[in-house]
């Protein structure tokens, strides 16, 4: 079951990363894998196939000597699967077929490493160790012509670098995806539009407003106006530390756009400092309907919508918390 889930996960990841047949072909070109390389690899195929167990052991023994690889090696399930993948990898490496299914296996392995929290540098070191062992085997077979042996080894090494390219890309892509998700979350959180009464929205703005954020704020406000059929919006800028002419311009744009959709905007929370600096800068806020604080803004908005809040006169003596 888990096997199946991971397989589709690898395929999904390949699609997201744009690992298409063309892209894989291009990757082969980048490492310079040519027909004569395939011929040389075929020549050492049996040699590698004959030593799969031994080579796998080299890789994992090296990992075992490093503290950093504990997370992978201490988890028995992950370790066994990684071993299995490595055996398959070694066998596939010499099959001279480096198409999508080969890449899929690499992606799967990379996902496993990512899950186990195996550091890239640790993996690279162990992989290099493995290549050294393969190199030793190849050179031993080509004792008579060391140069030929070197050529064969380099051909294998091209495949190895092809693999490394994929594995590094997968791990980096995975990390970047986390960053992208967090950015989306921050963006969502930073522009909440809240309905506090029928047809009345509250838009609290906190932090720095730049052009990009101003655009997001305007967009989400306009969508909310339509979704909630809002008539009045209270925009509270208590949390905006400084307002310069650019920010003021953004605010005016937001207000104008809301008005085009038939909603009036009340701006609240201009502190004394902000108000003074706006006056000093000579920014014309004539178009903005401003009220000192959020409470005043809410009262004004309720008045515009015909609400009146009346105390029921039955407040308990002590409000329980």
């Amino acid at each position, binding site marked *: 079951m888990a096997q199946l889930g991971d397989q589709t996960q690898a395929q999904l990841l390949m699609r997201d990363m744009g690992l298409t047949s063309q892209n894989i072909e291009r990757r082969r070109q980048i490492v310079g894998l040519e027909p004569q390389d395939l011929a040389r690899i075929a020549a050492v195929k049996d040699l590698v196939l004959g030593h799969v167990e031994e080579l796998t052991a080299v890789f994992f023994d090296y990992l075992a000597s490093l503290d950093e690889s504990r997370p992978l090696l201490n988890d028995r399930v992950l370790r066994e699967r990684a071993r299995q993948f490595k055996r398959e990898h070694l066998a596939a490496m010499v099959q001279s077929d480096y198409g999508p299914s080969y890449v899929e296996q690499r992606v799967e392995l990379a996902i496993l490493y990512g899950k186990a929290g195996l550091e890239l540098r640790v993996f690279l070191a162990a992989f290099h160790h493995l290549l050294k062992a393969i190199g030793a085997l190849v050179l031993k077979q080509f004792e008579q012509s060391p140069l030929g042996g070197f050529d064969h080894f380099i051909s294998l090494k091209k495949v190895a670098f092809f693999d490394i390219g994929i594995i590094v890309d997968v791990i980096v892509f995975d990390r970047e995806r986390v960053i992208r998700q967090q950015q989306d979350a921050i963006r969502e959180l930073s522009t909440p539009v809240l309905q506090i009464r029928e047809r009345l929205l509250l838009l609290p703005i906190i932090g720095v407003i730049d052009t990009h954020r101003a655009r997001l704020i305007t967009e989400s406000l306009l969508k909310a106006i339509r979704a909630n059929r809002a008539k009045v919006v209270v925009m509270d800028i208590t949390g905006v530390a400084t307002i310069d002419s650019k920010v003021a311009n953004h605010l005016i744009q937001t207000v104008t*756009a809301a008005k085009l959709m*038939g909603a009036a905007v009340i701006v609240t929370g201009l502190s004394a400092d902000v108000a003074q600096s706006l006056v000093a800068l000579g920014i014309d806020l004539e178009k903005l309907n401003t009220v000192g604080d959020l409470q005043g803004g809410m009262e004004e908005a309720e008045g515009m919508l015909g609400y009146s809040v009346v105390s029921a006169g039955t407040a308990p003596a002590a409000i329980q918390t």
Partner: protein
Amino acid sequence: MSVPILKQGEILIASIQSALSDRELVELRDELADRVGRLRSRGVVIDVTALDVLDSFATRTIRGIAYTAKLRGAKTVVVGIQPEVAFAMVQLGLSLDGIATALDLEEGMLLLQRWPK
């Protein structure tokens, strides 16, 4: 395609159904200016819900309609501006200053009915 102009009591409703050429916009303006006086209308609603773009000429013509109607004794409300359109207009610096806007036809009609005679 010319824009149908519907009469609902003292209010005229022009519902724009597809993107209009400059020529059709001018025709709409002339037609509305004529009918406002002839039918003694008190209000004009221009519904742009179906439009996904309002360029500078369209904005200027709508402004023209509103000012003409005002001189003939009617108030104009533009309704149904889409969020994307509103945003694009603001970015381009196009405004409908001095003209009433409302969310949709219903809101626009309410606004005109509440307007003091």
